[in-house]
């Protein structure tokens, strides 16, 4: 791979500075970053959200989002100065010689047109090929991207194909004019691990086949390890370090990079199993669904005091529906939920206030889980006021205690609105709100999946600490197996509304497995740059 640096240089960005406008003032988002890309080379761009990865990626096309401007530096693409080039000159390059693949293909495709129509748009407009030729070419690329039925998948509308297929169709579309450079902006972040593999493999193959240079933007280190020849780490608009993939993985130089690497190794010893005691929550033979279809089929598991049960599975496997049954939002058709050995009424409206208090929930998106018009005082104070009858001074003290507990300074934050907090802080408020009720059991629904790795690590540590402090039982819904490793005692694997396998964490991470668990476990990207190649070979061997 190292030989790629010998190839001619395709893109040079020097001392790039980009400013964004907020409240009438311009502030720098990218503070002087250099970037060099050779022909056929893949550069991985990693960093937390807000690090400026996407902004820098878009700048490689000479483009900025609304409200941003390039204020300094030079962008040289194959001898063309993109900063001084006219808008029509740049437009001639985009889509033809430089292409862009967005994070959410579902949101980026126009839902009103068929895939192949959108595919043909760029080549026809740039005059690379005629309409009929473009359609023949589309089928060829769909075949190379290993899409099922390449001959007619293009004649479907975006909502008629799955998320992983859509992302591959988008990559094919970016390839339509055989560009010299493609910018991938988190192309697999929204996908399940099992689908992610297919997309990663397809992208890697096609980039290699056409010898296309690429900038691969992601926050997932294990993914970038599979894709990139070189990795550049960004932090708040400044480059932290850059090295070729193997060097970067084995011996990062900077502390920040090391801390990013360390997050993935967060793990805690499992709590000893308690078999005889009455479980805090016991889900027994639950079958439930919406309308006439059953989403859950005979689901059952126990959650004991001070233990964390991780429920894992792809989207649509029934994880969140199980949570809805436990909270009483969706009364089951069959089966029941026991709390401390006592059956809970199926509908939350029939539960007593104390039963409601005992089981709390923390949501995935803190943005929608906190009322944007209420101040933290009321957001956190309300459960304490309602369930525990606290008023006046006692309530004030309790709110401050809770804020201290989640590591936010009470005096500074108590009168803020949710919009005045960062993503991680919002999620902490969600935790405080659950704690305010003094529950025995908390459902954590993908609480870290919308957060950056370092922030997510902080949340997981906080949850862990609170668990031992208050003897809490957690049900931890997640699709991220790294999180499972970090926090779970017990694992329940779900697929198509059934529990496929369950047991202690240590047993789960060792074979033999149910085939689905095996697929799920093996699909989690590892930091080893050869992992994807090896995995694909193994799977191919097994099939043969």
């Amino acid at each position: 791979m190292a030989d790629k640096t010998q190839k001619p240089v395709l893109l040079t960005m020097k001392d790039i500075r980009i400013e964004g406008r907020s409240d009438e003032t311009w502030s720098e988002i990218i503070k002087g970053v250099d970037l060099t890309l050779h022909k056929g080379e893949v550069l991985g761009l990693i960093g937390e959200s807000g690090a400026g990865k996407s902004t820098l990626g878009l700048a490689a096309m000479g483009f900025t989002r609304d409200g941003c401007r390039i204020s300094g530096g030079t962008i040289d693409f194959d001898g063309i100065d993109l900063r001084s080039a006219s808008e029509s000159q740049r437009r001639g390059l985009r889509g033809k010689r430089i292409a862009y693949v967005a994070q959410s293909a579902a949101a980026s495709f126009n839902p009103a047109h068929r895939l192949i129509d959108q595919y043909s748009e760029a080549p026809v407009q740039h005059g690379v090929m005629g309409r009929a030729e473009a359609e023949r070419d589309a089928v060829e690329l769909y075949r190379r991207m290993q899409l099922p039925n390449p001959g007619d998948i293009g004649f479907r509308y975006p909502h008629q194909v799955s998320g992983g297929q859509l992302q591959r169709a988008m990559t094919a579309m970016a390839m339509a004019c055989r560009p010299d450079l493609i910018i991938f902006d988190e192309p697999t972040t929204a996908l399940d691990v099992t689908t992610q593999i297919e997309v990663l493999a397809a992208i890697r193959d096609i980039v290699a086949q056409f010898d296309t240079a690429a900038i691969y933007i992601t926050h997932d280190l294990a993914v970038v390890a599979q894709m990139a020849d070189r990795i550049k780490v960004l932090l708040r608009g400044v480059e932290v370090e850059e090295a070729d993939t193997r060097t970067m993985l084995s011996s990062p130089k900077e502390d920040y990079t090391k801390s990013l690497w360390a997050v993935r190794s967060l793990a805690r010893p499992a709590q000893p199993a308690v078999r005889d005691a009455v479980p805090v929550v016991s889900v027994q033979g639950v079958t439930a669904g919406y309308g006439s279809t059953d989403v859950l089929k005979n689901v059952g598991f126990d959650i004991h005091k001070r233990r964390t049960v991780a429920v894992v599975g792809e989207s649509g496997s029934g994880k969140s529906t199980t949570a809805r049954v436990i909270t009483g939002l969706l009364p089951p058709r069959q089966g029941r939920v026991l709390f401390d050995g006592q059956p809970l009424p199926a509908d939350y409206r029939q539960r007593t206030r104390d039963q409601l208090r005992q089981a709390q929930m923390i949501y995935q998106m803190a943005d929608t889980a906190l009322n944007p018009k209420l101040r933290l005082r009321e957001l956190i104070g309300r459960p304490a006021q309602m369930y525990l009858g606290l008023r006046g001074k006692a309530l004030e003290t309790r709110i401050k205690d809770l804020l201290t507990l989640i590591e936010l300074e009470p005096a500074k934050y108590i009168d803020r609105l949710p919009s005045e907090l960062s993503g991680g802080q919002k999620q902490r408020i969600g935790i405080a709100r659950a704690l305010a009720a003094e529950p025995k059991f908390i459902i954590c629904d993908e609480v870290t999946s919308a957060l950056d790795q370092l922030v997510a690590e902080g949340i997981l540590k906080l949850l862990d600490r609170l668990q031992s402090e208050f003897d809490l039982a957690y049900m931890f819904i997640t699709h991220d197996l790294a999180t499972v490793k970090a926090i779970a005692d017990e694992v329940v694997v779900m697929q198509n509304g059934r529990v496929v396998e369950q047991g202690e964490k240590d047993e789960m991470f060792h074979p033999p497995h149910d085939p689905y668990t095996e697929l799920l476990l093996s699909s989690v990207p590892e930091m080893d740059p050869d992992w994807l190649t090896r995995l694909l070979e193994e799977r191919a061997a097994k099939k043969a």
Partner: protein
Amino acid sequence: MSFLIALFWIAVAIAGALTAGWLFLKIAASVTRGGTARALRSAPVTAGFGMLVILLYILVALLAPVIAPYAEREVVGAQFLPWDSTHLLGTDNLGRDMFTRLVYGARNTVGIAFLTTALAFSIGSILGLLAATVGGWMDQVLSRIVDILMAIPSLIFSLLLLTIFGTSVVTLILVIATIDSTRVFRLARSVALNIVVMDYIEAAKLRGEGLWRLITREILPNALAPLVAEFGLRFCFVFLMISALSFLGVGIQPPTADWGSMVKDNAALITFGDVTPLLPAGAIALLTVAVNFVVDWMLHRASGLKE
């Protein structure tokens, strides 16, 4: 030539209005503090003009007995007297002072329109939020009733109801409020439908919050911006509707001064090239424009749009 002069005066009027609005914003921003002052400083000049006009109308309505030179129903001279120093805007078809009537008209027309809009909003938004929150049969019943009421053209429907129940101020307010509350209901319901699916509403329900608190603390604050904007627009419609009904003779009844009927009573003068009967109409138009300026600004702020 006269066309050019008219054009000149229109330009002067617009410039004057904008200057007045700008001055008003400067003064208002300097006497207020904190968030209000910041909002006022960034407000467009048109909004300043709108607020100034609304403020003037309120003042005139409140201080009517002080400002008006005569009593509301007093006959002070011959019919249709021209403008002079004793009767600033002349007299009307019964010999009452036109300026006095105009001032009292502000009180009656604006006051009744405000009461009506407030009532329409209370009914419409509470029922709309209720329908969205409870859903199911409650939503079905309320929405179907509203559909039925909305299926009948509003002016004809109000004429019908006013003919049946008689034309007193109270019936007028109740009839128009009922008809207008259906529009508010639709808006409140659709806004709330987007809010009730949020996780924080689910969290509040699971916490065991009662219906009243759910509506007033969790949903209403998030639905307020579009509702306030609608309040402004709705106020204009109600205002025009009352004037229209008064013009038709079933609205505010004589001898109470009211802009709509004042246009009708003095309409004969228009044939003689006199602008006096158009002054009440102008007063209505000015307030409508002013309210819309302010509403535009509020909508802009609520939607978070820049420029």
